[in-house]
């Protein structure tokens, strides 16, 4: 089996006269793998917690429940945190902001990256070079570094972090999109569409895009995994507008000093983040394996 990493998928040429695998059919086929099912179950569980959590939380997220760092007991199932707040209630409350920010940032980066990658692949001229060298410049910054620079200058507002993460997602998606689209651009049906006078945007999004969806879906789930990690890490580093924000990353930071005697305050958000990123990782791997399997069986025909 070919591994999940998006970069490899991009290198895999789509077999020449195969019709595109539709995204829905790829997803459906990937559901035959246990790893995809487990991944979807994990992500579903965490998304459910993030959405309904605030409504079923036993206490307010900043309500004082018991002495700081109380062990689990009556009234606080997982004990209390550094300010005497209920760990469970904050856990149920803390997923929404991370998930929402990661989703918006990844989606924005995905859209911009796909447009740039497809345009670069289709242009086949200096525009390709200019766009991809521009992408190289952004790639030179580790994701967290650009977010830190932005937070240092503008302040750690949620939208600043979203823009920074989206911006650093763009070149990584664009590379995959361009890589997957390059062999398709050379094929006859594109020349045919050009000869028929199909508008350029329809060639890009009607002909090229469907043929690049496999690698793109894999890369998108990989990017989602990293976006969640970076956003949680930024809160962990103390970059959040509200110093008592119920946010999983910040919870770990606030409660890790008490690991020795009240570990639940840090352990519960760790479990939440770990299950979420594992879930997106497993989904990506399931799709990658399915796409590789389809390509392989076509190669054998």
């Amino acid at each position, binding site marked *: 089996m070919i591994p999940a*990493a998006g970069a490899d998928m991009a290198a895999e040429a789509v077999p020449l006269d195969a019709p595109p695998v539709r995204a829905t059919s790829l997803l459906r086929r990937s559901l035959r793998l246990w*790893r995809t099912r487990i991944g979807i179950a994990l992500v579903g569980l965490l998304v459910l917690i993030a959405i309904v959590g605030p409504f079923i939380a036993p206490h307010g997220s900043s309500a004082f429940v018991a002495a700081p760092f109380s062990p689990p007991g009556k009234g606080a199932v997982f004990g209390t945190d550094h300010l005497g707040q209920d760990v469970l209630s904050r856990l149920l409350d803390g997923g929404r902001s991370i998930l929402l920010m990661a989703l918006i940032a990844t989606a924005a980066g995905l859209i911009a990256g796909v447009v740039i990658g497809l345009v670069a692949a289709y242009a086949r001229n200096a525009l390709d070079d200019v766009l991809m060298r521009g992408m190289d410049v952004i790639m030179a910054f580790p994701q967290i570094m650009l977010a830190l620079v932005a937070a240092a200058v503008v302040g750690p507002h949620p939208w600043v972090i979203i823009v920074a993460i989206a911006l650093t997602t763009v070149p990584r998606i664009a590379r995959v999109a361009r890589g997957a689209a390059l062999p398709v651009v050379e094929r006859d049906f594109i020349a045919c569409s050009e000869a028929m006078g199909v508008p350029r945007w329809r060639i890009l999004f009607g002909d090229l895009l469907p043929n690049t969806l496999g690698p793109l879906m894999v890369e998108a789930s990989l990017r989602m995994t990293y976006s969640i990690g970076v956003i949680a890490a930024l809160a962990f580093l103390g970059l959040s507008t509200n110093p008592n924000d119920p946010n999983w990353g910040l919870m770990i930071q606030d409660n890790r000093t008490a690991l020795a005697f009240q570990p639940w305050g*840090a352990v519960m958000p760790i479990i939440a983040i770990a299950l979420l*990123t594992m879930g997106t*990782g497993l989904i990506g791997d399931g799709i990658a394996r399915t796409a590789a399997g389809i390509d392989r069986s076509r190669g054998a025909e």
Partner: protein
Amino acid sequence: MRARFRWGGVSRFIVRRLLLGLIVLFMVSLVVFAATQALPGDPARAILGRSATPAALAALRRHLHLNQAVFSQYWTWLTGLLRGKLGTSIAAQVPVTTLLAPKLVNSAVLVAVSAVVSIPLSIAIGSWAALKRDKIFDTLSSNLLLVLAALPEFVVAVVLVLLLATTVFQVLPAISTIPPGSRPWNFPSYLVLPALTLVIAVAPYVARIVRASMIEVLESDYVEMARLKGLPERTVMLRHALPNALGPVFQVIALNLAYLAGGIVVVEYVFNYGGIGSAMQEAVINHDLPVVQALAMLIAAVYVVLNLLADVATITVTPRLRTRL
């Protein structure tokens, strides 16, 4: 056996890559400068806060050359950068180079230790998994690596502290504060947990690429040929398969060393390890823009140089790529 080298082509390739790298670095400097100094708004006020006196604001503006035109601000900054003058840290009131030089050594030691452990380890795991494809070792290692690769570094770091330094076992220090003036190699136990975190962050990714690349090579005709000739499996692996599987691996190693350069921000912060990563976190919290600028430039430069080296290394170990030069 040995293909004839066309060093003319290779050196021309290196020169071209070098020029391209310089152009990217120049554009990176524009981005860093634009992001930190040319943004709308007053950096002096951002640094000093709302309660700053007009005199303090004016003094800081002069200090940051904010009273000049944007282009000449950039020129002052860039020429300073090229001469190693990175300005003065606003929080610490010492030259940025004096502040960062010892921290740079600490971080370099940490990254080097992580790389020396993680690269051979991941090549070994990846190759072994490819050789035992779909057997128990491969299935177990693939799934474990998949899960580990998905975990953010700070989660790995805190879990390691939980397991090895606080709650479960207390065998290693939870905090790796290197006293000022000392060197990290005098405190080997301080390096274990930070380095282990970075290894766990990087090794899974490299191992997976090695496995994929190795599987492709093992299925090739020349490996089959070598086996049919009756060569021992050891020779087939080490002399025929591994060198050919390593081409793409250089790219991944470079990418991951660059990734380590970003990962150290979080890992050094968790362990309070005095390197450039924790310096970055501090500088961001303190709005210490000269330090932020210097570190962003430094880490981007590391990335560009590593990529350059990886491209050259790939060309050197993959003779068939040279025909395209």
